[in-house]
């Protein structure tokens, strides 16, 4: 175990100067110890697949990251259930572990909200692969960053796209009642209305259920030209399937980055033809991505992306954090490794033009690292195809 | 000997309810167990029926040890208990209760015939045959309980306080019936508070006190035993005015 708590680190003889000047001091690692990245994610319960998947993606990143001046990285993924209580408890656990230098997470918004103030006090940077709720980056947090879209970006673009490009006049809005899905759906609805379209129905579904024919029938009676869905692939694919038997067979299904993924394709089959989703603008098939996919399949026995759409983002967030650690870590005169914490926070936020598996990221001063406009994709012949 | 109990000890957790109790029942006999409340009479019957298992001792039924046999297997040997407190299946009708009594039999027509016999004996039950057992009056329930026990065609019948809560006229009737059942070849082990009546129809009797057999003998002898008279017959000798 690292010998000293972060705040005391500066006093240790042999510590480099940065530690004295650093607002939060340094994390110290004796030779042979590991530099830990934390992750708070739901590993159990109804959303377990997200946590399991993203942590698996991140664990590959940690292996790929190699070492920092001879010290190895490790991922400490803890189950926070996606709830505020779990988030706070995991965050409190992480801040008492001096070996944790940064957090690749959290994954669900509630957990992030409760965890943020705790990391803020300890000076541990976060980089969430999946928190999209718009206001998270407006709270003035010095530690919170994300590579996920902000709902605002994605939602506005989707609203415009639906009205201007797809020429939809009547839109039905569905969401899963989560802060992610609802936030997105609200934004789309507002933008679509602003553009001059009509939102003919707004309904929420209950995640975890598998029969949405009733609500779809009700929506169908409004004859929408398209159905926008804010939510995840599990419910999204069921909706696409059931739209075909409820009188919505001619409406366009328009999803989000949560419904994108191979999993969606396998579930919807032919029903999915013409369904839209949004993704980060990235070259979908880089060599790195191919390598990652192979590694993921080999290690975890599943196709990357079959548990959640955030596999690659999970990889990216851990990889970016590892890069930042490499940039700031110093070996002291005593042979220990020192990671200055405030400097690390700054380094994470200074990420620029990082080309990852799920996009190219440049962090802004508010922690928004994915400012680019989303890319729209559509299912054609059973595959996702980018559209202009 | 159709039923033989040898030195059984029974515990409820830490409480010992029976201490080295031995008694027996011969084919065709009526034997009664009498004793104060909590003496352990019901415990005896439950041990014989396999509801309770003794910590030591043996129970044999016609040369066959049944000490740790399960209740349903004991019932299959046609040894039937009519439990204390009637224990009617409350939401089953009178008819269904009787059917339950014949659970070990499967011949429907036989069952039907025996139900008719019961109704002949207790016209009251026939009137109530579709009423849920739980809404019968106490006495009606007692009639039902005994009838239910008879439905299985018992070879040995264990009766636990059959006269409890019955009108005097019915008590008479019940004892008549017990006698009759016995005449038809069923051996009977009768537990009773009404010691006078019980000893009057029994061949032999055992007196239980605090889990021990303190006295045993011919029923007539017991009826004359001063101690029995004092403790269990209300201090009055047989034949005195009631």
């Amino acid at each position: 175990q690292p010998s000293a708590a972060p705040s005391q680190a500066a006093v240790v003889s042999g510590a480099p100067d940065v530690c004295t000047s650093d607002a939060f001091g340094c994390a110290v690692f004796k030779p042979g110890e590991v530099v830990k990245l934390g992750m708070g994610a739901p590993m159990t319960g109804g959303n377990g697949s997200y946590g399991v998947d993203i942590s698996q993606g991140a664990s590959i990143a940690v292996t790929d990251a190699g070492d920092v001046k001879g010290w190895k990285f490790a991922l400490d993924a803890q189950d926070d259930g996606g709830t505020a209580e779990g988030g706070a408890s995991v965050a409190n656990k992480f801040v008492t572990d001096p070996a944790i230098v940064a957090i690749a997470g959290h994954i669900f918004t509630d957990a992030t909200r409760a965890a943020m103030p705790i990391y803020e006090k300890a000076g541990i940077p976060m980089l969430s692969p999946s928190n999209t709720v718009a206001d998270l980056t407006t709270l003035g947090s010095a530690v919170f960053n994300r590579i996920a879209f902000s709902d605002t970006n994605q939602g506005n673009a989707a609203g415009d796209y639906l009205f201007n490009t797809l020429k939809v006049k009547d839109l039905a809005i569905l969401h899963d009642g989560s802060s992610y899905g609802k936030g997105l759906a609200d934004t789309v609805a507002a933008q679509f209305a602003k553009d001059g379209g009509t939102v003919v129905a707004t309904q929420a579904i209950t995640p975890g259920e598998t029969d949405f024919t009733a609500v779809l029938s009700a929506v169908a009676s409004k004859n929408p030209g398209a159905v926008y869905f804010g939510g995840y692939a599990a419910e999204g694919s069921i909706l696409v399937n059931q739209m075909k038997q409820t009188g919505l067979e001619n409406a366009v299904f328009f999803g989000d980055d949560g419904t994108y993924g191979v999993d969606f394709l396998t579930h919807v089959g032919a029903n999915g033809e013409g369904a839209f989703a949004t993704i980060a603008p990235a070259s979908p098939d880089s060599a790195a991505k191919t390598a990652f996919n192979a590694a993921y399949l080999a290690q975890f026995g599943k196709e990357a992306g079959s548990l959640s759409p955030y596999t690659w983002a999970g990889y990216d967030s851990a990889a970016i954090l590892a890069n930042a650690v490499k940039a700031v870590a110093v070996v002291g005169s005593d042979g220990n490794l020192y990671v200055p914490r405030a400097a690390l926070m700054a380094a994470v936020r200074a990420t620029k033009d990082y080309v990852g598996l799920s996009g190219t990221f440049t962090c802004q001063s508010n922690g928004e690292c994915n400012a680019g406009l989303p890319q729209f994709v559509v299912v054609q012949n059973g595959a996702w195809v980018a559209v202009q | 000997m159709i039923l033989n109990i040898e030195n059984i000890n029974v515990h409820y957790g830490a409480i010992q309810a029976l201490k080295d109790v031995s008694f027996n029942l011969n084919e065709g006999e009526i034997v009664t167990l009498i004793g104060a409340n909590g003496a352990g009479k019901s415990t005896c019957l439950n041990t014989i029926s396999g509801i309770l298992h003794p910590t030591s001792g043996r129970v044999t039924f016609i040369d066959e040890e049944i000490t740790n046999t399960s209740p349903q297997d004991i019932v299959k040997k046609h040894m039937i208990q009519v439990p204390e407190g009637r224990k009617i299946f409350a939401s089953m009708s009178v008819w269904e209760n009787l059917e339950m009594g014949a659970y070990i039999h499967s011949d429907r027509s036989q069952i039907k015939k025996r139900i008719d016999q019961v109704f002949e004996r207790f016209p009251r039950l026939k009137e109530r045959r579709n009423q849920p057992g739980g809404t019968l009056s106490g006495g009606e329930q007692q009639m039902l309980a005994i009838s239910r026990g008879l439905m299985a065609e018992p070879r040995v019948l264990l009766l636990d306080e059959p006269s409890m809560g019955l009108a005097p006229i019915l008590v008479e009737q019940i004892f008549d019936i017990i006698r009759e059942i016995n005449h038809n070849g069923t051996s009977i082990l009768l537990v009773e508070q009404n010691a006078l009546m019980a000893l009057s129809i029994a061949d032999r009797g055992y007196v239980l006190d605090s889990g021990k057999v303190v006295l045993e003998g011919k029923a007539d002898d017991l009826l004359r035993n001063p101690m029995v008279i004092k403790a269990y017959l209300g201090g009055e000798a047989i034949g005195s005015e009631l």
Partner: protein
Amino acid sequence: MNTSLRKSIRPGATIGIVHIFFVLIGFNMLVAILFARVSGVKQPDAIPAPVYLMAYSITMGIWAGVAAAQKRKQEFRQVAFAGCVAGGFAGIMAGLLEFGLAIILVKNINVRDVLTVLSANFIKGTLFGMQPAMGVMVTVMLFALGGTLGGALVAFWNSTPFQAFLNRGIRFTKDSVQKAQGVTHGKNRLLWQIASISLLALAVVFLPLNWGSYWNYVLGTVGLYVVLGLGLNIAVGLSGQLVLGFIAFFAIGAYSMALLNAPLPYHLMWGFWPALVLGVLLAAVAGLLLGLPLMRLRGDYLAIVTLGFGEIIRILLKSDVLTAYTGGPRGIQNIGGPTIFGRPFVTDVDFMYLIIGAMLLAMFIYSRLQNSRTGRAWLAIREDETVARASGVNTVRYKLLALVIGAAFAGLAGAIFASRNQFTGPEEHSLMASINVLSLIIVGGLGSIPGTIMGAFALKGLPEILREFENYRLLAFGALLVAMMLSKPDGFIPSRRPKFQIPIQPETREAPKEQDHD
């Protein structure tokens, strides 16, 4: 001999099945990793060195051996042999499994679509990195070895010298306990009480300072669940009304705090204390309103309706209908903390004190109510509502009272909880949370205060302790919950009935006067 062999095979088979299950979920690796960590490896690989997996096999064997040898009063050799048979049998099952795994490995069959953990590396690891045949053989041997060890252990435990040694120890502790009781009951009783209370007080004052933020957080949660548990205990443990959606009242407390004391959506900023009071009151009122139409319901009907009530509250809180007022699924953030005499009260330590205070208050009120006419009325209702009523208990009133007071407790816990997390959202108040509260009071011992505390530790502390088990945490938790109930059906610390004595002052001093009764 034959039957005794069969008796040993049964536990062996059981453990064999458990082992197969463990392997199929990859739990054997985790145990091996934990072994590795315990023996000093800092960062064990995902497939740790074979020694550790062998240690796992021996452990399973010991388990089988102990299971087979227990309750057997035979001589050493026989018991050890029984253990060996059990371990061996489990080992044979393990060997069969490994044989199957080896086939999968050699023939390169992909079963991972169904059973995810069975990667080639995993199988190789499970076979100790040996040739399949060798691995199988070694497994069987290790299991049998473990079994023998387990049997020997039990035999040693049962052996006369050891038991004698143990008895001496027990007698010693008993003696000292009795001596201590002599102190607690003798004339030094007051002194003793003062001493123990001040010791407790000292612990309460100083421990939070040294726990660190993680344990303060976890124990704070435990403390809040004690308050919740006591509230639910009033309804379930005392008055016998099975309330399943209890967390709804917690939610009402939390949202009152949030809406009244956060910048968004209303910027009311009433401050912590007024919000706390209102939260408690609103929760109590909710208890009353829920209770009114339901007073005729008994048992499980009440359970499902209250479950429904909990869900109604949660769904409404996150629904589009109330989004404008409650923040919808997003919840409410930046909830303010308390101030005392102008000093903001915000660190984890501060909150720990606040929670300890709330806990003491709840325990105080609970114990006072429990030993009063009200408490007895509740108990009577729990035991037999019909007869309680006919004995003069106004059952409707008391049942409502139980719900109201219980709800108030929950409101208190909820308000503090929201303020401590600085956030509350609808998913914080899910059915699982209600179930947790119910479980904790039963695991602890229905109706008892120390039981509630133990239960809160078990239900909220255990999952934190089980973090070592990573993804197997909830699996272990579920299994432990079952095991706890099986081994202690009345809970850890069942409630006891009070023993009354005739009060020292006879009634001559204050005889029941005539006018008392009209």
